[in-house]
């Protein structure tokens, strides 16, 4: 006997689809751009600590010889995350919010005072969660505060994001679970004063890129990608004197004009220098004159692609790109560039 429901629903689909009028991808992009613009006003974000790997849990465990139902297991994991936060950060005053990880989760901490705040999150179970915090002061008025990717684990470690709120407002935290975590992991998140965690930044050593710098390099790369420059190169700023970077086209000895598109996200300024270097058999033979020297103001709010630079590359030459971050930018800003034929 045929399944009449198959036919009924197929008819519904056939009858409805012609009447659907998609607003279109341009409308999606306009909305996305509008939201990006409104999420960036004055902000200073410091990622103080990123966290932990851990065991990935697969399948459902047995408890007392019985298989634990998914919903019950997730409830257990929510409790685990809750306890981890309470145990590891007992001084954090805020009441934790907890629940199952969702693909588009969001929690709100209303009425937060201005000043330094710490956001702590623990995730129990498989997968990982992308955390993005923003300060919301009213309709259409929000500020990106920072973000991080937190790994979930059977024995979760609390990840702490520290930021400064320039004005009072609500902190809205997007919690985006990856497919492994969505529906299978539990989170607990709390917010408190910036000095309540007892955790100090231990990641900002001289040769270790701080999460904030990595985050900003990703932001800068996203701007370039959105501007049509695919596969940009991300650069962090943990060293006082940035290392020289030899870029590809010259080393393949392809002469011609190249467009350098560069975006810097975060605080401070970069001193950018581009030189041509002669190459021989694919190796750097000699450094040539500077073809570009300029200051690049990094943007913490709404980094954008401004003017690009046109560089001419002689035969058998490559480009050497050097950027020196100032004190403010060092290991906080991140930048990205794209070099392609004009």
């Amino acid at each position, binding site marked *: 006997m045929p399944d009449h429901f198959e036919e*009924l629903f197929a008819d519904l689909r056939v009858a409805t689809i012609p009447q659907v009028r998609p607003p279109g991808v341009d409308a999606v992009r306009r909305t996305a751009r509008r939201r990006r613009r409104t999420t960036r006003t004055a902000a200073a974000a410091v990622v103080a600590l990123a966290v932990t790997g851990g065991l990935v849990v697969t399948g459902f465990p047995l408890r007392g010889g019985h298989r634990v139902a998914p919903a019950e297991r997730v409830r257990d994991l929510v409790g685990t995350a809750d306890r981890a936060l309470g145990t590891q950060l007992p001084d954090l005053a805020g009441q934790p919010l907890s629940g199952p990880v969702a693909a*588009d989760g969001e929690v709100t901490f209303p009425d937060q005072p201005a000043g330094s705040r710490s956001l702590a999150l623990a995730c129990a179970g498989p997968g990982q969660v992308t955390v993005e915090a923003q300060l919301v002061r009213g309709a259409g008025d929000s500020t990106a505060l920072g973000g991080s990717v937190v790994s979930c684990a059977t024995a979760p470690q609390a990840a702490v994001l520290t930021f400064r709120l320039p004005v009072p407002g609500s902190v809205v935290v997007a919690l985006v679970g990856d497919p492994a975590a969505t*529906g299978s992991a539990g989170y607990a998140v709390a917010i408190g004063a910036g000095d309540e965690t007892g955790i100090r930044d231990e990641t900002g050593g001289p040769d270790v890129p701080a999460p904030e710098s990595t985050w900003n390099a990703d932001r800068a790369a996203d701007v370039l990608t959105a501007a049509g420059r695919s596969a940009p190169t991300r650069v962090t700023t943990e060293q006082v004197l940035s290392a020289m970077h030899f870029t590809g086209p010259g080393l393949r000895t392809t002469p011609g004009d190249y467009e350098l598109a560069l975006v810097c996200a975060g605080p401070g300024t970069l001193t950018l220098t581009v030189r041509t270097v002669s190459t021989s058999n694919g190796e750097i033979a000699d450094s040539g004159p500077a073809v570009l020297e300029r200051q690049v103001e990094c943007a913490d709010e709404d980094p954008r692609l401004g003017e690009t630079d046109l560089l001419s590359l002689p035969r058998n030459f490559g480009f050497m790109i050097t950027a020196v971050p100032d004190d403010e930018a060092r290991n906080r800003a991140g930048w990205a560039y794209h070099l392609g034929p004009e």
Partner: protein
Amino acid sequence: MGVTAEAPEPDPEVGAAVPGAPVSFDDLYAAHYADLTVQLFAYFGDQQEAQDLVQEAFCRALARWRTVSGYDDPVAWIRRVAWNLAVSRWRRGRTAVGFLRRQRVAEPQVAGPGPERVALVSALGTLPPAHRRAMVLRYLADLTIAEIAEQEEVAEGTVKSWLHRARSALAAQLGPDQFDSAETTAQEVRRA
């Protein structure tokens, strides 16, 4: 200074779809917007609201496209977000949807739904939400029982029970003579 150079590859957001390469956002939108809208329409009975929610889900996907495009099944993520938007009372405060609605330009008028379509959607509207979701996911999203169970975070047996009850209720409303719920359930079990 740490440098992370990526191998050149098409921009996944705007590039053309290539077998084995990340699917482009545009292609995904073109291929799935209407189908997702039909699913939510069957759930809500309101086509415009369904369109708004699906559009919002795609907006969220674009905002995280670098992450979402890396998933094995980006559509599953978008579908889940759309359904979360649909079932979440909090999100049905309609802030985002209301915003989209205000942004909407004058849209072409379309013919109203036919009587069969109205009857099915009306009958679906009388089902408990979980039963309704199960039917829509089964028959319009073509998900397996296991996939529905995963999305709804319940056991597979629960989904089978929902589907059985939903079919019985729909059959009673739409014309009991046309339907054999028990037979359909047996087919369901065999297919799953």
